[in-house]
């Protein structure tokens, strides 16, 4: 959000630098002064937590790449070499593996928060779309990274996922198989495939950093949404980013790190699949192929549809539909807190996602398949029917006039100083 800069270079060097590259002024403006709604709850700390996860993945990943060998013969044993021989290798690998899960956990909470409080609505469409793009990149990176240990689950996950593209054969015969051969670099998943997945797994996270930069830039242009969905109107509605948000984020990160650390040290393989400790064998499919937990809902959607091509389309559509949420939701009110009807559908949607996750881990038959179809249907109905329709027919509850009024109660002057040590603005504006 644009705000007058109060940055004053304090010494000779920073004065000299400020006239040449005002990078300290930029940091001061965006990460110290940046006005943030005073009513943000802990769900807003997941943006910071996600940045933290990204840094952990980058650092541990760069270290792992120093010891990993992307060859068909040695990939599997080089992982065990990292685990047993490399100094602290076990810590790096478990942090990276658990880190992937924690990254997705935080991302799903972050996305759900955005959906609940309408953070995708005007003027935050680009911010939201960049977020969906980040999510897509995360999925691609996680998939490629999962292939690298070259265990049975790695191998068969690559086989199943790359084969998704062969469904294009149904549209133009031969095209799908040609794409799959191109991805594989052969007639089956092999060392050639492993090498290119490793190359891209190293590259894409840096692209991700770039998109995250744009995401934060877009956030700092339009400002944070908040639990009321009412924009900041006066100085009393906001607090500076530092120390209020930095400290709150740091506290939440500490709690998040405790769960993270507990998993790393006490249950490092809890979220993984034991079959991935068997070396890849192209002649034997494991009896029960399941992806990592964070892909289970999408996997359930893929399997729920009896046609191969339509299943693939539905799976991709379940992500792509998120790009259009800003326009599918017709409600004028952002926050679901003030939407008495939509609120129920929101929680039904969350239940649907969890149910699909559960069903994705079950065999695709009988009653599991039946429910997977029901929930897949609701997943799309939620976006394509419920969101446009409820926005039109629902009568939302009255919104507070300002963030300050919501926090301090009705009748409070927006310049009320409670909880805000700085001087209040002289002329309160109450729009």
């Amino acid at each position, binding site marked *: 959000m644009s705000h007058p800069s109060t940055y004053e270079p304090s010494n000779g060097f920073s004065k000299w630098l400020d006239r040449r590259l005002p990078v300290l002024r930029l940091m001061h403006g965006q990460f110290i002064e940046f006005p943030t709604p005073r009513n943000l709850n802990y769900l807003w700390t997941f943006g910071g937590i996600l940045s933290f996860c990204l840094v952990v993945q980058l650092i541990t990943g760069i270290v792992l790449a120093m010891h990993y060998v992307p060859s068909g013969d040695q990939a599997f044993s080089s992982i065990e070499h990292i685990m047993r021989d490399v100094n602290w290798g076990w810590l790096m690998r478990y942090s990276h593996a658990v880190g992937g899960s924690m990254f997705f956990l935080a991302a799903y909470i972050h996305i759900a928060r955005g959906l609940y409080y309408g953070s995708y609505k005007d003027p935050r469409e680009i911010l939201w779309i960049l977020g969906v793009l980040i999510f897509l990149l995360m999925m691609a990176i996680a998939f490629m990274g999962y292939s690298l240990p070259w265990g049975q689950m790695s191998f068969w996950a690559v086989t199943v996922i790359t084969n998704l593209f062969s469904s294009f054969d149904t549209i133009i015969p031969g095209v799908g198989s040609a794409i799959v051969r*191109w991805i594989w*670099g052969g*007639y089956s998943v092999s060392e050639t495939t492993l090498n290119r997945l490793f190359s891209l797994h190293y590259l894409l996270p840096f692209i991700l950093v770039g998109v995250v930069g744009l995401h934060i830039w877009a956030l700092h242009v339009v400002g944070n949404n908040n639990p009321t969905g009412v924009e900041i109107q006066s100085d009393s509605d906001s607090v500076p980013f530092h120390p209020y948000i930095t400290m709150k984020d740091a506290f939440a990160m500490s709690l998040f790190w405790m769960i993270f650390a507990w998993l790393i040290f006490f249950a490092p393989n809890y979220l993984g699949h034991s079959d991935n400790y068997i070396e890849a064998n*192209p002649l034997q*499919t494991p009896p029960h192929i399941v992806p990592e937990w964070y892909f289970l809902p999408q996997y359930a959607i893929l399997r729920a549809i009896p046609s191969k091509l339509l299943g693939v389309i539905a799976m991709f559509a379940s992500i792509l539909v998120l790009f259009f949420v800003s326009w599918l939701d017709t409600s004028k009110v952002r926050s679901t807190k003030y939407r008495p009807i939509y609120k129920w559908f929101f929680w039904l949607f969350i239940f649907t996602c969890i149910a699909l996750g559960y069903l994705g881990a079950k065999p695709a038959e009988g009653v599991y398949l039946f429910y997977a179809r029901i929930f897949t249907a609701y997943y799309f109905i939620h976006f394509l029917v419920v969101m446009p329709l409820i926005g039109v027919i629902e009568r939302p509850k009255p919104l507070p006039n300002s963030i300050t009024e919501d926090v301090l109660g009705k009748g409070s002057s927006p310049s009320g100083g409670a909880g805000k040590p700085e001087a209040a603005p002289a002329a309160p504006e109450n729009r």
Partner: protein
Amino acid sequence: MASDIIDPTRRDFVMIASAAFAGIGGAASLWPLIDQMNPDASAEALASIEVDLEPLGEGQAITVLWRGKPVFIRHRTPEEVSMAKKVDINALPDPEAQNTELPEDAPATDKNRTKEGHEKWLVVVGICTHLGCIPKGQGLTDQKGEYGGWFCPCHGSHYDTSGRIRKGPAPDNLAVPPYKFLNDTKIKIG
């Protein structure tokens, strides 16, 4: 020059030429960058293998590796053969033989998926046509699915004793690779 405005000047020519150079050069260098990912000659080399069928008793099956792909060879029992022959072709999810040596629209009869005079032998590529898993059914104690052939554990596709898809998400029958009988107990695949 009087017609400066219409005629390209030397500067215009240099502009157009360098833009064309950059454009065509960029486009031309794109193809090697894409094509480097395609299977190379060593992967393309159509290796063929010979398989001795002598040790295979009735009801037994083996898996051999051909071009990095598993190939299922099953010595079918007379009951399995007659089961495969009885099927109504029009009721099959995929009515095409998927035999690389026959025309694309050849019907998926058991005759079109085996070699004449060697009906008890079924040779198919052991890769589920859904998403590329290896179906179960080669081992004697394996689950063979509802139609006595193979069952893919990944997403529940059932294949019959002729390797034809009968139930589940797979779109096609298991492919029949190019092969021939060298004598009664030896085949050459590829």
